[in-house]
């Protein structure tokens, strides 16, 4: 039985590792400036913990193979427990140090560093179960938000008050986050009802959107194309269907798009 158990463990370990090594299911392409750092961090962790995983499972299997139903004289671990404890602490401690130092750098580059001063500002409104995006328009000023004015039926997703608020009149509100490539973007995340989340796997970015507070989020897309923005924070019955598209364009394309939007 011991031998069976050992073989089973080894098979399970190898089968578990195979899809990881072959990237059978893996992260989608990375399209943000900070993304490669995240991937690198993940690969480092994968190697370190993968080695830990395989060796510990194999050691377990080996011991079960060797000592299953073993009747002879009982042996104790040579050298007692102290070296083992020390080994564990040092090994894991080292991994932790390396991970937390590198990791915190990557984290800082995403969330702690200030956004580029002339980044393109886009306002995000999340609600059950959709995202809407607002551009300041020709005047470069965002109209202020009045919750009592919000009315999805008449397309007023942000609660603008064009009657009294001139700045709001030329605001551009769209359902697709359209941005120029290689340009720093600064999003301001609002939620009108539940806690939502702004997740673009290709950008390697995930940020909750909390009602009552404005959360800034900045990134730079490095590749043109169209990807999905999805919600990862349980927000109600349509959570799974809450999404929008991210359209990354070349700078001239974007300018045309913007003109066309403020045209009508």
């Amino acid at each position: 039985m011991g031998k069976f158990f050992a073989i089973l463990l080894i098979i399970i370990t190898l089968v578990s590792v195979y899809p990881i090594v072959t990237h059978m299911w893996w992260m989608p392409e990375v399209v943000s400036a900070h993304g490669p750092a995240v991937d690198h961090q993940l690969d480092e962790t994968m190697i370190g913990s993968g080695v830990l995983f395989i060796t510990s499972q194999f050691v377990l299997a080996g011991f079960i193979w060797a000592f299953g139903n073993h009747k002879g004289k009982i042996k104790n671990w040579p050298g007692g427990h102290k070296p083992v404890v020390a080994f564990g602490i040092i090994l894991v401690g080292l991994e932790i140090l390396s991970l937390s130092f590198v990791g915190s750098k990557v984290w800082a580059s995403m969330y702690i560093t200030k956004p580029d001063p002339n980044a393109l500002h886009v306002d995000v409104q999340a609600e059950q179960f959709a995202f809407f995006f607002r551009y300041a328009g020709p005047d470069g000023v965002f109209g202020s938000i009045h919750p009592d004015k919000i009315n999805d039926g008449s397309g007023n997703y942000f609660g603008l008050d064009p009657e009294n608020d001139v700045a709001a009149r030329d605001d551009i509100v769209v359902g697709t986050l359209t941005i120029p490539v290689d340009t720093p973007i600064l999003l301001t995340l609002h939620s009108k009802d539940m806690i939502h989340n702004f997740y673009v796997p290709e950008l390697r970015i995930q940020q909750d959107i909390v009602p009552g507070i404005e959360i800034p989020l900045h990134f730079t897309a490095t590749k043109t194309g169209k990807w999905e923005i999805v919600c990862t924070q349980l927000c109600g019955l349509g959570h799974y269907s809450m999404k929008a598209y991210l359209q990354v364009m070349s700078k001239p394309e974007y300018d045309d798009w913007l003109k066309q939007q403020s045209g009508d």
Partner: protein
Amino acid sequence: MRTKFFILLAVFGLASSAMLVTAARPAGGTITGKVTFTGTPPKMKPIDMSKEPYCQKLHNPPIKTQDVEAGPGDTLEDSVVFISAGDQGSSSASTPVRYDQKGCQYIPHIAVMMVDQPLQIYNNDPNAHNIHPLPKVNAEWNKSQPPGAPPIDTKWDKPEFISVKCNIHPWMHGYFVVLKTSHYGLTGADGTFTIKDVPPGKYTLTAWQEHMGTQTQEVTVSGGAATANFTFKAMPY
């Protein structure tokens, strides 16, 4: 003896059939009219359906929001005109009202029905919807209807103007107009409405439009036709 009996029978027969006829005959009057507005109504916005590519493809150019549907000659489509006071001879309705979700739109935009009249809600799209009526006096509910799901059978037990929305497609917006009376009309593209089978009498007529609100006026129906026009005042915002 026998002949007497037959005569009696015949008399009864005639009488009863005569009663039936009188009961079955429509009680005359019809109210017609037009709902218009003065001033500039708010500009309807094109709806960005990019979240749901299927629906986005269906509408090119994109459809616009429907809270003020102005027609040529400043007419107002989709406003409801009904007898709000002095109503009589109102019949009860048992034929189900059909409410469709098609191309991420509610069809019709305004569904008028009577209290306790069956309401059937269909999803004709290949994507899921959720129907979230927001009543104040009736009971609120919120159900999702995945593609291929059976129609939702329901009804409303109190009269109310109930705003309906789909959270999955927040632009989807419509109204259930639940009335006590069967004497109502819905204005068409030309802003006209017709209320049939109104017995002679004096009534209070109410016109309701989701953005402009309500207006009332007295109308007297004597046998034939009566007319009642409504004019709302529109603001650009």
